[in-house]
């Protein structure tokens, strides 16, 4: 589903195991105990049961995730247009023609480059701001921290559609608060300025929504990780003469590194799949210079009615993301979350 799904979605399961990590070691031991004398007794009757229990989930995931993915691959090698869609005829096979068309189109390369650049900027800014705020939260007074946490949770809970609408309202050329505030500065007159004529400025606004929406999850997760840094270690390092940067590099960061990497990887995946923020900001009809890979694929399919081109682009996106996904999985395995 879209990025907002993932944002509340993956955030949630991340929270549950991590927050309970305090009780984890004992937990594990508890499970080892009965297992030692248990399996023989349970062995025979339990064999088919787990498979029965996960069967509905497998069928469901197969129908809505796996089968469409297979279809995406199949359709990418066919030529499905409006006629095939409505007549129900099976579309003709065209081999690699769709991919040849895509790779021969300079627009595709422009879109891919733009998507990667946008992702890098958003992830970089999100992680930097997120880490900075998390460390700041450790040092500020309690009442400021509570205020900030409240604001973060409020921002986190804003639906993507609502957040995008608010930022679009900020940047409105006639009545937007951004223009009227900036015009108050000496030497700047932005009254009536349209932020979306120049895509660089437009993407600045879009990046602002993305980062504003992504920062809360990063801050709250990293702050939780930072509280795990043993105080004695930090004090020992300070006694040994480490400066604040040294303490961070050699003591704090190694402790939070697994969490940091995990959050960064998730951000890469989410920001690569950005769709809604651009789509809604441009009133459902993004111009060619606002296309990211998701939008490009969507418009090829639903506006040019070239469904096969759309799926071929989506397939390329999946392949580009596959490496990141594998990296994420390996980290999950390493931290023992998949136990």
């Amino acid at each position: 589903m879209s990025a907002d799904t993932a944002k509340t979605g993956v955030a949630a399961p991340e929270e549950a195991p991590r927050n309970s990590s305090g009780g984890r070691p004992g937990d594990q031991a508890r499970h080892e105990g009965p297992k030692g004398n248990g399996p023989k007794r349970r062995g025979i009757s339990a064999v088919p049961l787990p498979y029965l229990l996960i069967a509905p989930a497998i069928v469901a995931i197969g129908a809505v995730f796996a089968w469409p993915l297979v279809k995406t691959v199949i359709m990418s090698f066919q030529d499905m247009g409006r006629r095939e869609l409505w007549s129900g005829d099976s579309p003709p096979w065209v081999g690699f023609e769709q991919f040849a068309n895509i790779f021969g189109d300079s627009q595709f390369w422009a879109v891919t480059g733009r998507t990667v650049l946008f992702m890098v900027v958003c992830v970089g800014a999100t992680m930097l701001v997120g880490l900075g705020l998390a460390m700041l939260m450790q040092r500020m007074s309690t009442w400021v921290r509570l205020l900030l946490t409240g604001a973060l949770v409020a921002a986190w809970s804003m639906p993507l559609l609502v957040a995008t609408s608010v930022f679009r309202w900020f940047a409105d050329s006639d009545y937007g608060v951004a223009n009227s505030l900036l015009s108050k500065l000496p030497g700047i007159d932005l009254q009536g300025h349209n932020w979306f004529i120049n895509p660089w400025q437009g993407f600045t606004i879009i990046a602002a929504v993305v980062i504003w929406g992504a920062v809360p999850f990063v801050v709250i997760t990293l702050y939780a990780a930072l509280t795990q840094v043993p105080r004695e270690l930090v004090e020992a390092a300070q006694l040994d003469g480490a400066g604040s940067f040294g303490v961070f590099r050699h003591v704090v960061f190694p402790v939070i590194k697994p969490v940091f990497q995990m959050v960064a990887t998730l951000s890469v995946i989410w920001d690569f799949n950005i769709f809604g923020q651009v789509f809604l900001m441009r009133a459902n009809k993004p111009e060619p210079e606002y296309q990211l890979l998701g939008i490009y694929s969507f418009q090829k399919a639903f506006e040019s009615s070239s469904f096969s081109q759309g799926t071929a682009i989506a397939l390329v996106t999946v392949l580009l993301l596959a490496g990141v996904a594998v990296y994420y999985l390996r980290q999950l395995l390493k931290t023992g979350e998949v136990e």
Partner: protein
Amino acid sequence: MSAANATAPKPDAGTERPAARKPFRPDRKKHRFGYDVLGLVAFAVMAFPVYWLLVSAFRPNREIRSYDQTLWPSSFTFDNFVRATETRFFWTAIQSSLIICVTSVLGALVIGTIAAFAIGRFNFVGRRPFMMVLILVQMLPPTAMLIPIYVQLNNLGATNEYWGVIVVYLVSVLPFTTWMVRGFVVNVPRELEESAMVDGCSRMGAFRRVILPLLAPGLAAASIFALITAWNEYLFAYVLLQDNDKYTLNVWLMNFTTDRGTDYGGLMAGSVIVAVPVVIFFMLVQKKMATGLTSGAVKG
């Protein structure tokens, strides 16, 4: 951040520990001031969009269509809300949203809980791959699923039907529902279930009488997260439904933007209507999550 750090040469304070302790505290308070100011700036930046949403929603239209936006509300009106709720298809949109979200979340909860029980309690071949699949499918780009699903539903003649969207939402929230409930299943001691079975419960009885009540906070949290996700989704609803009276609230919200311009007052009021349940539920989950987790910690 870096500027504040530079003014805090902490190592000096720790040369002679017992002696240094006392002057360390007031020193610290002074440093806090800088951090507090930065924290308040961050607070302002994070809170401003939410603030502006509320202010604009309650502002009369003549102030919204003004070249000089005042940061503080000077007058207060419900006009925008009245206008928003009087637009066509508002009530049908609420109805669609409720039908689609509640059905799909209930379905996901049932399927997800039994799957979570399986992967949280049993060790079987294929458990780890199954768990990995749960994570991987959440990373798929939306269009990779949207196009084939649209084509498939179109072949079945099922576009513009609620059930198509319901099935998609159900499965979309299923992976993290399963993953999250599993975290709570793992925290329920196996001995409880075993002693219930020693006392004569069947496995099903033990699950229903012992595990399920203990899972209640977890299930509540998972279902609320799922509900929020489903409530916020708009792309599939936008593409898979076609009639105005079937559209969900999120798609309805797009009606405020027309070719002639955007009715920002109405849009902000509509956004508040869409966001309020989400925010309330989100706060609820945070609390529920906390109690669920701390009660587990006490027992452990």
